[in-house]
């Protein structure tokens, strides 16, 4: 069977004129992008494990299914979760220009003629829908979620988690197939040699049908190293306006566009970011007034007022609080060590800690902490921050602060702590 010749337009190889496109460029961009997406993928699965989905009602994903990365999450080092999320979000954002460049370099392939050569080609193209669609889906949903923008009709957590499986499955087969092509490209042209050419010496790669190199290259207007510098400077720009929301310190003022960067720099001891205000959570001044009591339960049961809690031995620690959305901030917290409260009611050994908030609704009004987390000496029921009482938005009268615990599990407006045998 003979196919008609390609119609005029992008289906003809001669339509694509850029002298930079070719196997070397795509191999190089792909090899730069690959480690970044692997880091973003790994930190994403680690983030899911940090929620300890096996405990209580911590799981945000539907039960069952492929969740192979579950393990007890440690409480040390205290910056573990902040680092993981900062890397996940910042590296993901910084990889965007590289992803766009990689996709630009293979754009002619989308229009390849004939659209399907044989069954192998058809199944390969189908997996490329998963690869390109999955990659863009993961980047778009993650980036929009960090800006609290939800123009879609699906659950972000579930879709972002399983979208990663679509992308990584397609990526695994793609890398396996393309590895020999990459090696051939570097063998033929050298790994770094094409970067030595300035604009005057920039030549197109030799044309072969279907090789991405153009049959009729235009005169170059930028060198290959110039293109990499262009991509690198766009990534660097994103890094500068983003990383401060995770790194903190003076860099936070430089985070000009990050959702929790410069815009959240406030004065005062309670002037740091929250992920939900008291008003949004439905927590009122009245519910947190002098009548507020904390119930703690284990083998015994006690009810404590805030005055009684303040009268106990207070622990003080500098600890980071880190959001799944990537931002974090280290503050000076003080309050009652959870260990001391556990001793008061004779918590059973090997127990998990169920924390409940007076927040009337929302999936995160309760959290369950593993033993390593609630027995850490720095794990606090915090009452004060930076030398003053917690503000209502930061969880007054009392909140959980545990090293390396995901921010949304550092429950605010705590009413009940129950130590139960796991």
């Amino acid at each position, binding site marked *: 069977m003979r196919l008609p010749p390609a119609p005029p337009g992008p289906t003809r190889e001669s339509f694509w004129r850029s002298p930079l496109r070719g196997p070397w460029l795509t191999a190089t961009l792909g090899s730069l992008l690959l480690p970044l997406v692997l880091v973003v993928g790994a930190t994403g699965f680690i983030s899911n494990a940090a929620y300890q989905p096996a405990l209580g009602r911590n799981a945000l994903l539907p039960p069952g299914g492929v969740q192979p990365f579950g393990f007890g999450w440690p409480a040390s080092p205290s910056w573990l979760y902040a680092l993981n999320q900062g890397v996940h979000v910042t590296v993901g954002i910084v990889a965007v220009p590289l992803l766009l460049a990689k996709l630009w370099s293979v754009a002619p392939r989308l229009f390849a003629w004939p659209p399907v050569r044989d069954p192998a080609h058809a*199944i390969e193209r189908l997996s490329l829908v998963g690869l390109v669609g999955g990659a863009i889906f993961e980047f778009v949903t993650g980036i929009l979620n960090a*800006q609290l923008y939800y123009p879609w009709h699906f659950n972000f957590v579930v879709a972002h988690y399983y979208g990663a499986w679509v992308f990584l499955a397609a990526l695994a087969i793609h890398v396996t197939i393309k590895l020999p092509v990459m090696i051939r490209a570097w063998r033929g042209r050298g790994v770094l040699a094409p970067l030595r050419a300035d604009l005057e010496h920039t030549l197109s790669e030799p044309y072969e049908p279907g090789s991405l190199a153009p049959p009729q290259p235009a005169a170059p207007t930028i060198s290959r190293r110039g293109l990499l510098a262009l991509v690198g400077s766009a990534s660097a720009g994103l890094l500068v306006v983003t990383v401060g929301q995770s790194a903190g310190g003076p860099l936070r003022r430089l985070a000009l566009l990050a959702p929790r960067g410069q*815009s959240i720099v406030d004065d005062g001891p309670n002037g740091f970011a929250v992920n*939900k205000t008291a008003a949004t959570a439905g927590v009122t001044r009245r519910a947190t007034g002098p009548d507020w009591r904390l119930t703690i339960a284990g083998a015994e049961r006690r009810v404590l007022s805030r005055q009684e809690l303040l009268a106990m031995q207070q622990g003080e620690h500098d600890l980071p609080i880190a959001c799944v959305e990537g931002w974090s901030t280290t503050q000076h917290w003080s309050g009652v060590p959870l260990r001391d409260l556990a001793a008061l009611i004779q918590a059973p050994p090997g127990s998990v800690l169920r924390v409940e908030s007076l927040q009337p609704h929302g999936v995160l009004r309760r959290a369950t902490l593993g033993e390593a987390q609630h027995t850490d000496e720095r794990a606090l029921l915090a009452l004060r921050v930076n030398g003053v009482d917690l503000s209502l938005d930061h969880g007054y009268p009392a909140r959980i602060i545990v090293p390396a615990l995901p921010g949304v599990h550092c429950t605010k407006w705590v009413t009940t702590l129950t130590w139960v045998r796991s």
Partner: protein
Amino acid sequence: MIAGLRRRYGASPWHLAGHLVALGLAAYAVSRVLDPRYSRGLNVVVWLVGGAVVHDLVLVPAYSVLDAFARRALAHRAARGVPAINHLRFPAAISGALLLVYFPLVFARADGNYFRATGHHVTGFGTRWLAITGGLFAVSGLVYLVRVRARRARAHRPRAR
């Protein structure tokens, strides 16, 4: 038999097996999200495929056409030795990447959610993006002028032998 499969399929049996495993895993993952408790209809499939379609058929043609337009407009300057086009491409690429990633904040698309979460309204992001963009083009333009002057000075200097 293997040779027959290879001829009819177009690649080795390993190619087929690998793709079937990958596509099977992907189909399973999509089916997990299609649970009506977590997604409305096929909305998640629309987003999975739609992102690639919008990228390939809107974003790539759009920036390619802009680039071609700028190249044509600056063609007369290319001959002078300093490629002016790249002094547009660099600020445009950086500014464009910032806008692509942060457009919801730049255009205050989710002020309600942002206020409910942070207690602050989305303010100043658009102004800051514009200021960054202006600064980038200004710096790039200055570098261009410096490079053109340096080249002219070099051209007029008598060559030392």
